């Protein structure tokens, strides 16, 4: 018996045992999807948040429009727009040499999740940066630090700590939201579960999937709490 069949074997569930391996490889795809898109989204969000606060007027409005648009519409709809909608323009993508990217459902999902989470993370970071007193920036400038240096060494580190909790929540939201990837043919945890259900018609398989998601989310929540505790131990906040 392979390791991935054990949970089903131990819980005495035949269907969980039969489809356990598929579900755990689905879990790995869920993990990849979320890890890649949240990391890329974060990198994008830092740039967006800074440009939104300190950039030229036109950049501010563009970024504002971007965050409003992606935070105001459902992820499912965005995913379908990218997967089916952008797929419609195959000839164009072939001309610009990007069709290999939009051809694959996995890349489409990563792309959509990245631009979606970047919009949310940018708003979180903007709020965090804004709540750092302006005097800090001025103080850093007065000490002779360059604009960028003050941002990098003074403002951002503090904003990161303030944003830690909402960013953790965003990570959890993405794990749950990634289940919609199953609707564009990806066999993530949700997709593998739907397959198992479609073949066995055994509802309990959904409960096992729910349990796996729950454990995953709880682990991340606990780890994040510890992380926050560690990073803020020098502060007299609590």
């Amino acid at each position, binding site marked *: 018996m392979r390791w991935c069949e054990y949970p089903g074997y131990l819980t005495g569930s035949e269907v969980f045992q039969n489809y356990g391996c598929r579900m755990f490889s689905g879990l790995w795809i869920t993990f990849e999807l979320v890890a890649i898109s949240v990391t890329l989204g974060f990198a994008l969000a830092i740039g967006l948040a800074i440009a939104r606060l300190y950039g030229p007027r036109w950049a501010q409005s563009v970024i504002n429009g971007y965050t409003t648009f992606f935070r105001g519409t459902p992820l499912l709809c965005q995913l379908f727009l990218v997967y089916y*909608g952008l797929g419609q323009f195959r000839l164009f993508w072939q001309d610009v040499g990007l069709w290999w990217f939009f051809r694959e459902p996995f890349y489409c999902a990563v792309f959509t999740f990245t631009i979606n989470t970047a919009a949310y993370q940018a708003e979180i970071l903007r709020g965090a940066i804004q709540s750092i007193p302006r005097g800090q920036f001025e103080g850093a400038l007065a000490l002779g630090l360059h604009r960028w240096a003050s941002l990098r060494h003074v403002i951002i580190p503090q904003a990161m700590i303030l944003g830690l909790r909402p960013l953790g929540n965003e990570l959890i939201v993405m794990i749950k939201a990634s*289940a919609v990837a199953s609707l564009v043919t990806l066999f993530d945890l949700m997709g593998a579960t739907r397959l198992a259900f479609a073949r066995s018609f055994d509802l309990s398989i959904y409960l096992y999937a*729910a349990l796996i998601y729950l454990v995953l989310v709880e682990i991340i929540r606990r780890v994040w709490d510890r992380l926050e505790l560690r990073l803020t131990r020098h502060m007299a906040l609590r």
Partner: protein
Amino acid sequence: MIEKLALLGFGDGGWGLALLQGAGITISIALATLPFGLALGLVVALGKRSENVVLRWLATGYTTVFRGVPELLTLYIIYFGIQILLQRLWEWLGLPGSFSMPPFVAGMVALGVVLSAFSSEVWVGALNSIQKGQREAAAALGLSKAQAFRLVVMPQLVRVALPGLGNNWMVLLKETSLVSVITLPDIMFITTRANVATKEPFLFFGAAMLIYLFFSLVSAWGLGRLEARTNRGYAAFGGATR
């Protein structure tokens, strides 16, 4: 281009009317879920602050579960699972015929349960913000416990909780898109069907996005007004609202 836009129109072969109906379903399921989810959330919040250990434990477990499981999965479990459970109950009761839960109710229950888990956190925060002295003062004024809650606690609660609950509403509005998988003909359902019928996915999903965006913007505007209204009288005391 023009003939493509005709697909969104109301003429023959146009999907305009269907899209409007879909938008109607989306907004009605969101509106129907809201009071149910918020009320249940408040009950759960009171449970979390209860002195009874079992109640506290139950309420915390409830939020942990429904905040941790993907909404799509919750929807499937409720749509199929609850239906089968109630069917068994129906038979056990010896009622004639059979039981069938309409997709609208299933969607409402699933979204409402998720909303209650998230809104309970907001309610807890708001309840914590009301000082104990207020209740004591209300008691000293001769108000009963229920009266104190209704007349003293509740108005303040709503004001403090409003931004958080408003956020819950925005999330709910977007989550309604998932009910299309249980065949409720909402915006997403109509657009996926229109997509396969016309081969114009970009046009239709783009249109769906704009409808959702419109709802979001209107909601944001309305919530802003509402917040300004509930905060009347507070600004005078030196911006206590921030």
